[in-house]
C-alpha cells in the first residue's frame, strides 16, 4: 500500500474539472443542469478509479463500482421527475474518451488478476450508463402522472412525440 503520486496528480485533472461542472449545475440553463450532474458523476468515477490506484488500495474500487451502478439510476429517476434529459454529446465523449483513458492504464499497472476484471467491469458499466443517459431520452414527456404535467393528466400527444423521437 504505497501511495503513487503520479496517479494522484492524474486524479487532480477530473477533480478540477468538477469546478466548472459545478458552475453549470448551479447556474446553468435548466435543461443543462441534469446533464452537468450526470457529467459530475462520471468525473467523480474517474477520480475514484485513479485515487484507488494512487492510494494503493484496491478495496477503494468498490466505491467506483457502486457509483457506476447508482449513477445512471439516479440520473434516470431525476430525468423522470425533472422533465427529461436532453442529448448530451459532452457526456458521451467524456465517457468514450475518459473511460478507456482511465481504465486501460490502470489495468496495465495492476496486471492480470481479479483487480483488472473489476476495473474492466466498472469501466464497462460507467460507459454503458453514460452512453444511455447521454443519448437524450425523453421520459419527461411520457404520459405518466408523475411527470411534469399538471394534475389534470397529460395529453397523449406528448407521449407520441417522445416515441417518434426515439
Amino acid at each position: 500500500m504505497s501511495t503513487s503520486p503520479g496517479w494522484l496528480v492524474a486524479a487532480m485533472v477530473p477533480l478540477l474539472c468538477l469546478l466548472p461542472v459545478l458552475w453549470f449545475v448551479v447556474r446553468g440553463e435548466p435543461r443543462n443542469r441534469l446533464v452537468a450532474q450526470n457529467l459530475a458523476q462520471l468525473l467523480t468515477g474517474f477520480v475514484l478509479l485513479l485515487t484507488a490506484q494512487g492510494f494503493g488500495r484496491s478495496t477503494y474500487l468498490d466505491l467506483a463500482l457502486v457509483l457506476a451502478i447508482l449513477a445512471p439510476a439516479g440520473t434516470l429517476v431525476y430525468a423522470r421527475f425533472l422533465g427529461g434529459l436532453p442529448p448530451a454529446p459532452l457526456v458521451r465523449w467524456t465517457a468514450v474518451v475518459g473511460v478507456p483513458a482511465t481504465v486501460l492504464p490502470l489495468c496495465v499497472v495492476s496486471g492480470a488478476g481479479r483487480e483488472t476484471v473489476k476495473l474492466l467491469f466498472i469501466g464497462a458499466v460507467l460507459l454503458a450508463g453514460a452512453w444511455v443517459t447521454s443519448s437524450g431520452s425523453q421520459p419527461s414527456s411520457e404520459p405518466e402522472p408523475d411527470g411534469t404535467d399538471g394534475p389534470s393528466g397529460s395529453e397523449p400527444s406528448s407521449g407520441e412525440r417522445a416515441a417518434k423521437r426515439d
Partner: protein
Amino acid sequence: MTLLPYLVAGWIFLVGLYGLVTSRNLIHAVGCLAVTQSSTYVLLLAIGYRDGGTAPVFADIPTDARVVDPVVQALTLTDVVVGATVTALLLALVIQLHKRHGTVDPDELSELKG
C-alpha cells in the same frame, strides 16, 4: 492546511444556518438542514485524519500500517444515517403540511402565534 478543514466545517455550519434563517420554502429549509449536518461529517473526519495514514481496513494492507482513526468514521457513519432519516421524516411532514395549508412558505405559515 492545518486549519482549513476545520474552517470549512465551521463555514458549512454557519452557511447552512443562514439558509435556514432566510428560507422561504420548507423544502429548501430541509435541504439547508442537510447542508448544516454535513459540517459535522467534515469536522469529525478532519479530526480523525492522520498524516500519511490510510484507511483502517486491513484486507489489503499489513496490520501494522499507519492508519487514520476508525472511531470518527464509525461516528460519521451513524451520523449519516441519522441525517437521512431526519430528512425523510421532515419531508414527510412537509408533504402533509402542504396538503393542509396549501403552502410551504414559512412566512405564510403562522397559525401558531403568541
